[in-house]
């Protein structure tokens, strides 16, 4: 097994990775920016190395500084978490080049999946259904308008190198496409370093359902069930659940088998996620993207399967067998994850500030993955995720009940949070019925 790991991330995910590292006997090294010196993950690591100022570009995205910290502390491996350098094939390659173990898929897999246009084309060749869309970057507005005529409106405008919903928008007609195209291009350039734009047919009513895969060292790819991530605001996930209440056994089996095929097509190794959109009216599903890393919402899969996914990542990276027998995986019960953001519950506007009170809920089936504690300052430099409030129940009704109680008893003071939104979500008949789609939040917050 590995002896040590440097966690190239911050907040809740750094803390969560450190916890499994410690359970497995690995020494854990944290890196942190000036803004994060007081956060729990820095304290909980065995060693913590400051790597630069608050701005992500000068700290968590500075691959050279992260790698230098790994070398300096004698870390044997690097776990990137999600975001930041997790999907940088160049960083992964530099870690391997330095003689360290990369806890993630190969740089090749990352590169193949990082470009959405390339990923779509590859998946189509592998027999994975994709939505009608452009097979190469759209050069300019005229090309976009021409492509959209062939695809059919409405279309989604996306950054090919993008992720996290940033810079994504829908266009219902040529006027909206013309207006949205340049914005999308400049955001793509700014956030992802590439102006390449992809147009894709927009599905009117869709659920976002993704499959957790695990690529083993012997080449097998396992599918560990699905997660429904249809509760989104600004194309970003707010709540997730497993299993999806919106798909039946046949569709589930078909999606899991397709996800395995997608993983095999890129010889995937380690934990990854294949995202699909399910058309609510037809029951058809199409490939959206593949995330070559641990996913934010991985805890719901862990709660229903009892499998520690970070442990499997370490085992696979170390060239070892996973900790469980693939044919013995028996998902049980229902899990929910509510992303607790530092943002107001009405308009979802950012609300950085200092946390004066932090009281986590507890009880049967409750798991809180938190990045902060009382006294910490939440700065504007990073995403607004404060904590993931996760619950598990024997069935969906029990999970919902536990979630309501947990939300009501989560005490956070000093800044605005979206806990109020979660309370409403859990009471909403549409969410409660399970029959919702990605426009649920827009219906709860019209205008």
């Amino acid at each position, binding site marked *: 097994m590995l002896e040590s790991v440097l966690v190239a991330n911050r907040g809740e995910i750094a803390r969560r990775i450190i916890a499994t590292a410690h359970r497995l006997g690995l020494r854990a090294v944290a890196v942190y920016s000036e803004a994060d010196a007081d956060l729990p993950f820095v304290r909980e690591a065995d060693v913590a190395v400051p790597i630069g100022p608050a701005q992500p570009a000068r700290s968590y995205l500075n691959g050279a500084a992260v790698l230098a910290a790994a070398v300096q502390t004698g870390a044997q491996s690097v776990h990137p978490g999600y975001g930041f350098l997790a999907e940088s094939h160049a960083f992964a390659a530099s870690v391997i080049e330095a003689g360290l173990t990369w806890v993630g898929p190969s740089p090749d897999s990352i590169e193949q999946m990082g470009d959405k246009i390339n990923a779509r084309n590859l998946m189509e060749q592998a027999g994975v259904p994709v939505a009608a869309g452009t097979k190469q970057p759209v050069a300019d507005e005229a090309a976009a308008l021409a492509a959209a005529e062939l695809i059919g409106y409405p279309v989604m405008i996306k950054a090919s190198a993008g992720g*996290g919903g*940033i810079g994504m928008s829908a266009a219902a007609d040529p006027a909206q496409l013309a207006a949205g195209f340049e914005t999308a291009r400049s955001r793509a350039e700014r956030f992802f370093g590439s102006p390449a734009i992809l147009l894709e047919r927009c599905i009117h009513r869709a659920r976002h359902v993704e499959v957790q895969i695990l690529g083993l060292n012997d080449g097998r790819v396992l599918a560990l069930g699905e997660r429904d991530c249809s509760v989104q605001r600004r194309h970003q996930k707010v709540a997730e659940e497993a299993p999806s209440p919106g798909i039946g056994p046949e569709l589930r089996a078909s999606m899991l088998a397709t996800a395995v095929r997608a993983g095999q097509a890129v010889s995937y190794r380690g934990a990854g996620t294949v995202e699909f959109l399910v058309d609510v009216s037809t029951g058809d599903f199409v490939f959206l993207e593949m995330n070559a890393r641990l996913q934010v919402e991985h805890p719901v899969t862990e709660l229903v399967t009892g499998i520690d996914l970070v442990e499997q990542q370490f085992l696979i990276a170390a060239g070892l067998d996973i900790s469980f027998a693939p044919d013995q995986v028996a998902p049980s019960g229902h899990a929910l994850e509510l992303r607790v953001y530092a*943002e107001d519950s009405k308009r979802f*506007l*950012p609300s*950085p500030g200092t946390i004066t009170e932090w009281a986590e809920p507890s009880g049967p089936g409750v798991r809180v993955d938190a990045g902060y504690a009382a006294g910490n300052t939440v700065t*504007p430099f990073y*995403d*607004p995720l404060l904590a993931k409030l996760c619950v598990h129940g024997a069935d969906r009704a029990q999970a919902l009940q536990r979630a309501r109680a947990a939300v009501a008893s989560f005490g956070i003071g000093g800044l605005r949070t979206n806990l109020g939104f979660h309370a409403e979500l859990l009471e909403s008949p549409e969410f409660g019925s399970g029959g919702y789609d990605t426009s649920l939040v827009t219906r709860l917050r019209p205008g």
Partner: protein
Amino acid sequence: MSEVRAEMVANVWKVVAAEGEAVTDGDTLVILESMKMEIPVLAEDSGTLTRLAVAEGDVVQEGDLIAVIE
């Protein structure tokens, strides 16, 4: 005269308007960035932008002055 102030702690990502310019109610003056979200700051009045109190790269606190329109 109307003063435009920051609604939250944020970084000034882009300054769109320039001092001395005529602006109309609803025009974007600057774009703030907080927690990976772009937040346009709009003129709440029409007139002349007599003061622009921030520059790109600044960090503003909630309530900080961003611009003055007269």
